């Protein structure tokens, strides 16, 4: 199948070309946000206030890295579990968010929004924070510094490894993958 190289911001045809199960390498700018940052972003939207960055076409990475040591670009930076952002994700997609990177299942509302607003959900490897950090070339806190690891950072990534979990066509790698390997474990010891 080969690995697809994609760049951000994500254009519609890029999103449309991605299918569940595709391995991708992402390059360009991505933004970090997890629980508390999402809470604040959605609050701004409710109050009709501008967001700290233009969300159209962008990709949000659900991550709260470890503090960087002196001289490091970023600390360990693997994905956090995405379902905690499910409540907020459709609101952001409505405003033009095109991609999310995290780990774990999404709600039906999120999957529907992915189809409706033409977005994509990527899975990254949880617990591979040291490895993933190597693809992060720069990191800058752009909002909510008081949230420490939960602040919003603008990252420049190069060949960030991920896999398409939910595509615009309704595909879901977690369901398909699980079904394929159900009852395939044989005990041989």
């Amino acid at each position, binding site marked *: 199948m080969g690995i697809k190289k994609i760049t951000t911001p994500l254009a519609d045809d890029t999103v449309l070309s991605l299918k569940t199960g595709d391995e991708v390498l992402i390059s360009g700018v991505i933004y970090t946000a997890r629980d508390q940052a999402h809470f604040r972003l959605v609050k701004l939207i409710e109050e009709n206030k501008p967001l700290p960055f233009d969300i159209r076409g962008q990709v949000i990475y659900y991550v709260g890295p470890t503090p960087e040591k002196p001289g490091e670009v970023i600390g360990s930076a693997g994905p956090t579990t995405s379902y905690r952002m499910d409540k907020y994700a459709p609101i952001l997609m409505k405003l033009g968010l095109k991609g999310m990177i995290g780990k774990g299942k999404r709600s039906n509302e999120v999957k529907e929004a992915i189809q409706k607003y033409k977005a994509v959900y990527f899975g990254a490897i949880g617990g591979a924070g040291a490895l993933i950090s190597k693809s992060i070339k720069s990191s800058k806190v752009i909002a909510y510094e008081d949230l420490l690891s939960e602040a919003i950072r603008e990252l420049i990534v190069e060949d960030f490894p991920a896999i398409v979990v939910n595509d615009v066509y309704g595909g879901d790698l977690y369901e398909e993958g699980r079904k394929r*390997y159900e009852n395939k474990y044989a005990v041989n010891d």
Partner: protein
Amino acid sequence: MRFITSEEISNAVKNLIINSSVSLPEDTYKGLKQAFEKEISESGKTVLRQILLNAEIAETENKPLCQDTGLAVFFVEIGMNVAVRDKNLTDAINEGTRRGYSEGFLRKSTCDPLTRKNIGDNTPAIIHYEFTNGDKLRIMYAAKGGGSENMSGIKMMRPSDGKDGIMDFVVQIMQAAGPNPCPPNIIGVGIGGNFERSAILAKKSLFRKLGERNSDHELDEMEKIILERINNIGTGPMGFGGICTALGVHIIKEPCHIASLPVAVNIECHSHRHAEITI
């Protein structure tokens, strides 16, 4: 009576925390390697390869294995002939935790449960004490990530549910957890005690070395059956499909009330960071 200073304990705790954040224990690495050889799914193999590579990078570059460096969990065995000087033991461990997470550049993940405001130094640690003979202090530490902890569960079962009911419950928990707890996982099961005790037993069982058999024959059999059933769910590494969803199942049991059958299932992720020291 033998005396240990609180400073010595804080220092030991700090080192346990910093070292285990970057260095995957041998039993875990071995278990992951075996899983890699066994896995038949392509994406599962890719994930396991990257997890192993991540462990190597973390070790050589001195970088945390996972950004979730956990809540600090301790099981401490206190010999009856040892005493702590200066600060009390709990304060000494918390001080070590504070230093470990700050000096090791680890993520501080404790927060107020309602306001969600970060405490800032990853305290308080979760500490369980037991008393033993002798004059030694044994400190067992684990960094427990939130992703896997969140998928854990507890159930006050009916005594009539029996062994089959217990095994079904464990499998159901893993079915519901799916990709969320970063599989492949280690599944700690506590059977008996009471409500809170079963959860502590489940957590404690995670400290058994991966790959080491249960010395209780009946529990050993149950572990094998549950492992097989979990690996037949199909979740696989990171949930992308595969036959390696669990690296191991560890059970501890203890007597319980004649009316009860408490069962707790504590899920641990592949980033199984644990270490211990005896002072």
